[in-house]
């Protein structure tokens, strides 16, 4: 007795559908889990403010190492849990130290980073002011010889006249 045609098609279709489902499921499991509602832009907005100590001088948002990829996933996870940027940064500081921050916190010796540039600009301005002033002084000094040189001459002539007068 032959099975109806529709039953044969069903026997063929079922394993195919099952295989398809398995493939889709395995692909979904193999790819990194993306937290719902958190975009790469949101992650990178925070990541660019952080530096992984392993890859010095490369911001986290463009760093290609596995360590940095794990950090970005961690940011994504924290964002999906409702953490804000400041909380996430504080978490990274607590875990890995101040050096992960792109802008060091203003405390301790870090103050130097914020104080030295404006102080250097002020000092530079003062040096320029002094330099300009000293360049102006010789110009005024050129006018001075008239009085400076005539004064001793007058004195000399006066004393000479006095001496001659005595004779």
């Amino acid at each position, binding site marked *: 007795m032959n099975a109806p045609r529709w039953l044969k098609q069903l026997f063929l279709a079922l394993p195919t559908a099952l295989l398809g489902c398995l493939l889709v499921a395995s692909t979904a499991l193999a790819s990194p889990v993306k937290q719902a509602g958190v975009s790469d832009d949101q992650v990178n907005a925070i990541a660019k403010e952080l530096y*992984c*100590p*392993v890859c010095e001088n490369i911001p986290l948002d463009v760093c290609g*190492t*596995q*360590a940095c990829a*794990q*950090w970005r*996933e*961690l940011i994504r996870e924290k964002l999906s849990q409702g953490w804000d940027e400041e909380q996430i940064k504080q978490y990274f*500081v*607590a*875990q*890995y*130290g101040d*050096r992960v921050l792109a802008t060091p916190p203003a405390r301790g*010796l870090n103050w*130097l980073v914020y104080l*030295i540039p404006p*102080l250097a600009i002020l*000092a530079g301005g003062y040096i320029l002011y002094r330099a300009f002033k000293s360049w102006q002084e010789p110009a005024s000094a050129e006018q001075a010889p008239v*009085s*400076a040189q005539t*004064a*001793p001459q007058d*004195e000399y002539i006066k004393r000479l006249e006095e001496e001659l007068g005595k004779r």
Partner: protein
Amino acid sequence: MDTQPAEQTRPEVSRRARPGWGRALVWAGVLALLTILALGLIRSQQGPVGVGQRAPRFTLTTFEGERISSTDLIGKVVVLNFWASWCKPCEEEAEILEAAWRYYQPRGDVIFLGVDYVDTEPEARAYLEKFDITYPNGPDLGTRISQAFRMQGVPETYIIDQQGILRHMQYGVFPTLEHIKAVIDPLLGS
């Protein structure tokens, strides 16, 4: 005759007599800054802690929340291994370190500690589970321990004797269990 006109001598005298506190302050500031820079440079150029030196003190908080202080470990040989889940060479020696721990654990006078460097906790826990690591492990919070040891990179292992003196530094992986035994056994005496 030495007599100088008063107009010429006065500015020179006033310039010399100026106290120059501002200038002294500027020089002091520049010197202080150069000193800080020099100290920073010296520190950055320092190599790792040398063999024969006292090992830096540290406190490790394990993933289970236990606090282990190096001062409490005096009298024991300490094997301090820095690793990370993203570090492929670390995977090579994970089983060897675990085997060494299981070999020495019954004695009670050797302790293995794993310091997880710049890692994320879920991946670190998965790594420990994958390699069935049973000795205490914890994150290097604030990278304080790795900085104290002036660590160069993972994996790196420091072996500290019973008096707290650093006896061996291993850059990279321990290739075999025998290599670890060759370092630890002489420290144990018998």
